[in-house]
């Protein structure tokens, strides 16, 4: 618990993370101190590497996490976040393989830092929730994952293609860490029925998970910059669940 006579500081800047012979830009925010601190990788949402994700990285850093948020659209060029997101849409989206590779590269980057405790978690919302879950199923190097309303974890066979070759739910058997899921009961992607299917798959494979489902909330209820989506009461409780879950698994 913070006290008012306590020093704190954050160091935050854009950096470049080596990723598969290339580099991906990333926002790195960390507590100003020697550590050791646990790490977090944030997977941004469909509207891109935007201000909400920069501010969320700072929030994680204030809570004691060395936090890195890669620009998953980095290879599509640069401009304002919404212009870049439009370019990604026009070019048919970023591939799951690219995102997973960038996520794993960020985990490796964090683990090489001298002030890291050695434990790393993943967090994402919307498509980022899906990407965080997907990455957690394809690495054994992480200790917790937070999936906030990740859509298309459950996918119909007709939705699979070269960019999304496997539905994340079908990789659940390989999930290597506990998962926290936060969902709105008024969301239609993922729908409550899809969340049920995801939960059943986690149970089937004996995975450690917590799912919390909120009445009166739809998609994106953490987004204070989107008045139509934001639900203050549910967001406050959801963040409490995030900090509690991460403290237990990364602390």
């Amino acid at each position, binding site marked *: 618990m913070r006290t008012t006579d306590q020093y704190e500081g954050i160091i935050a800047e854009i950096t470049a993370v080596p990723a598969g012979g290339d580099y991906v830009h990333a926002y790195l925010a960390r507590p100003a101190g020697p550590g050791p601190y646990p790490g977090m990788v944030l997977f941004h*949402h*469909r*509207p*891109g590497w*935007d201000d909400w994700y920069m501010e969320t990285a700072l929030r994680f850093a204030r809570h004691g996490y060395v936090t890195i948020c890669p620009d998953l659209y980095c290879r599509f*060029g640069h*401009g304002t*976040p*919404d*212009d870049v*997101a*439009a*370019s990604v*849409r*026009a070019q*048919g*989206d970023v591939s799951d393989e690219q995102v997973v590779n960038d996520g794993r590269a960020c985990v490796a980057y964090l683990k090489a830092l001298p002030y890291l405790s050695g434990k790393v978690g993943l967090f994402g919302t*919307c*498509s980022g929730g899906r990407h965080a879950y997907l990455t957690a199923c394809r690495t054994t190097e992480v200790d917790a994952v937070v999936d906030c309303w990740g*859509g*298309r974890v459950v996918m119909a066979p007709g*939705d699979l293609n070269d960019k999304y070759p496997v539905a994340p739910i079908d990789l659940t058997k390989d999930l290597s860490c506990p998962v926290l899921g936060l969902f709105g009961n008024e969301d*239609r*992607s993922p729908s409550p029925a899809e969340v049920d299917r995801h939960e059943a798959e986690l149970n089937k494979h004996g995975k450690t998970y917590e799912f919390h489902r909120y009445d009166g909330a*739809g*998609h*994106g209820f953490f987004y204070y910059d*989107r*008045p*139509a*989506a934001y639900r203050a009461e549910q967001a406050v409780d959801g963040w409490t669940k995030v900090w509690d879950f991460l403290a237990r698994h990364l602390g």
Partner: protein
Amino acid sequence: MCTTISDHAAVSGSGKQGGGWFRVEHAHLAYDHPSHAAFEHALLLDFAGQAGDRPARLAVELSLDSARRLAEALTRTVEAAEAYERKLDEQARAGVG
């Protein structure tokens, strides 16, 4: 992408962005999370092209209902314009007008 709904049309014309015009070459359409409009999903319509050596984009994010009204109005206007063009062609061939 949170939906997989997208489409594209090659177009030719001009668009205005800020104080300047640019050549429009593509129209990209999607139904996905908007960046600004206050909807969970919106019809995203981008007119894209080049402004000199820089990429340029004119963007609108529309509710589904208003996108339908736009599509219908666009179709009506295009059909009226095509009829007008046919009439001019017929008059030219007949040597009148």
